[in-house]
């Protein structure tokens, strides 16, 4: 009697467990589908041998990829310049700020890290407009041509990337043992040497993740860049938007795939050096 009861309960338990497993796999599969179906569809579209997007396509070609550089080469260069500059700029400013914030546990630290999130709460288009007006104001009073310059774009992107870099830097130091810095000091390292030889290596994965974030954000940003581009200084997302106003053809899909490959490849390379997943929680 007792045995049967136990067995029954065991059966029920097993059934519940296998149902649970089924549920989990369903969720995982549908999650993956939601993420990857649009991406795969884009890849598929980029291969259509036809100016109009028609199903089924008359044939397949790689010629759209050959057309990327003639059409978007300049914008890609601008976007790369912009993205790399905002990586360098936000790391140079944000990492020291993060070290300072995590070292000095003064009362305002939590207030400051909350305030740092403020730009992220403002819709990008509103922020873009505000920054544009601000730059116009500076331009009219100092006649320093900021609007429509790469510098203006870089500065506007720092508004978003810098807070993230600071927060990731602080987070990467949470489990850092300050005693290691004191040990280095006692062994004869001066303060800057301590930061270079002990603190920065400890922050490595955080810094890499922060740089990656800054790059991806800057490279893909459309709504802030809309206000700040000018002829000759047009970023890739803006160029794509402008192109879409007159054409809807597989070239756009092939540019999108090229961008995905670029960013995805970057992430894969960096993931070999640091486990990004460990840092971005």
């Amino acid at each position, binding site marked *: 009697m007792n045995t049967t009861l136990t067995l029954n309960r065991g059966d029920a338990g097993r059934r519940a467990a296998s149902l649970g497993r089924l549920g989990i796999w369903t969720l995982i599969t549908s999650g993956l589908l939601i993420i990857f179906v649009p991406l795969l569809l884009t890849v598929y579209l980029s291969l259509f041998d036809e100016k109009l997007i028609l199903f089924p396509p008359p044939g397949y070609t790689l010629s759209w990829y050959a057309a990327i550089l003639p059409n978007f080469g300049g914008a890609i260069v601008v976007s790369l310049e912009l993205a790399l500059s905002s990586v360098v700029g936000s790391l140079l400013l944000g990492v020291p700020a993060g070290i300072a914030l995590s070292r000095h546990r003064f009362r305002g630290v939590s207030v400051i890290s909350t305030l740092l999130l403020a730009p992220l709460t403002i819709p990008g288009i509103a922020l873009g407009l505000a920054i544009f007006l601000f730059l116009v104001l500076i331009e009219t009073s100092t006649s320093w041509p900021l609007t429509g310059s790469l510098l203006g774009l870089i500065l506007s992107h720092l508004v978003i990337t810098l807070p993230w870099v600071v927060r990731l830097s602080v987070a990467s130091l949470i489990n850092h043992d300050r005693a*290691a810095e004191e040990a280095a000091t*006692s*062994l004869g390292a001066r303060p800057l040497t301590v930061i270079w030889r002990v603190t920065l290596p400890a922050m490595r994965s955080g810094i890499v993740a922060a740089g990656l974030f800054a790059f991806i954000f800057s490279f893909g940003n459309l709504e802030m860049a809309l206000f700040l581009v000018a002829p000759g200084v047009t970023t890739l997302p803006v160029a794509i938007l402008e192109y879409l106003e007159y054409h809807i053809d597989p070239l756009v899909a092939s540019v999108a795939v090229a961008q995905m490959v670029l960013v995805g490849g970057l992430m894969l390379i960096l993931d070999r050096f640091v486990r990004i997943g460990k840092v971005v929680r």
Partner: protein
Amino acid sequence: MSGAPSAAALNLRSLRKEFGTHLAVRDVTLDVAPGEMIVLLGPSGCGKTTTLRMIAGFVPPTGGDILLDNESLVGVPAYSRDIGIVFQSYALFPHLTVARNVRFGLEMRRMATDAANARVDEMLRLVKLEHFAERLPRLLSGGQQQRVALARALAIHPRLLLLDEPLSNLDAALRQEMAREIRILQRDRGITAIVVTHDQGEAMAMADRLVVMRDGGMEQVGRQEDLYERPATPFVAGFIGNSNLLRGRLDRGGTLLTENDGCIALAGRYHAVGPACLAIRPESIHLGDPDAADARAQGTVMLGTYLGAVMEYVVRLDAGPDVIVRGPSAGRDAERRRAAGERVCVTWGVAVERLFDEHDRPAPIGEIR
């Protein structure tokens, strides 16, 4: 020994540290001879770590002076002090191999490559880690990390070695082994060393002399025997050897009246009258039958625990407090085992009785009864 560090003399002169209104270290004055190992011992918050950090140069003193070979260290930055430190967490550089960790201080001194290589090899041999040179610290056991930290601190041939709770992260078995190893190394190389710990066993095992600290001040300085046999205060008696502390009023004649009017018949007779504290070690107390002639107090056994070589009893005195009693569990000196609930008397000789007056000073003993 060739290439051995040149040991320095350390003198603390009225060393003080205030954090805001809190006095963390009050007028610590201490002379440490070259090659001597001093242990600062006390509970957390007693100021021992702050004292160590002032010597290291991480915390500026608010008063007093620190002299290393008669030169003041006050105002000298920590990176110029040539003081080796072993941290409680070991504080190894996680991204550097064992050899690179040990080499760090030599790189800071821009030592030539060949000389640095030779020094690193020597240090790793010294701590028996020559086969681990290319490992990363996280792949080592706690004891091995401890040895790397020691090798790294010794590699710079420090004038002084500071050890902050060096054994507290090791398991019990390794602790004693490591304490002996550090002690032999320090003796062998004639290093002046300051150790900070809250563990009296560790302190006893490593020290030439101990400094018992409490509330930022020095309670007593001395060798193990001095502190164990002649504790200057009830606090020292309680900290070194875990004495039973019984507080009460000393009555004329030699009776200690406890708070609830119980009586403890003291072994000695004292001049003092008034508030007093009796300190008596667990191993100094013997259990006897309730009607024994030399009974100091009556009580009931609450708990008896077999601890291997030792039997430990908790006895609740009729006079109020509990006392811990320890005695050999076997052999010629073993006493009859007592069961919980058994009525007993406690007794001790005059030689092991420590009585302190109301100012926590040893009470002068009068004629023996």
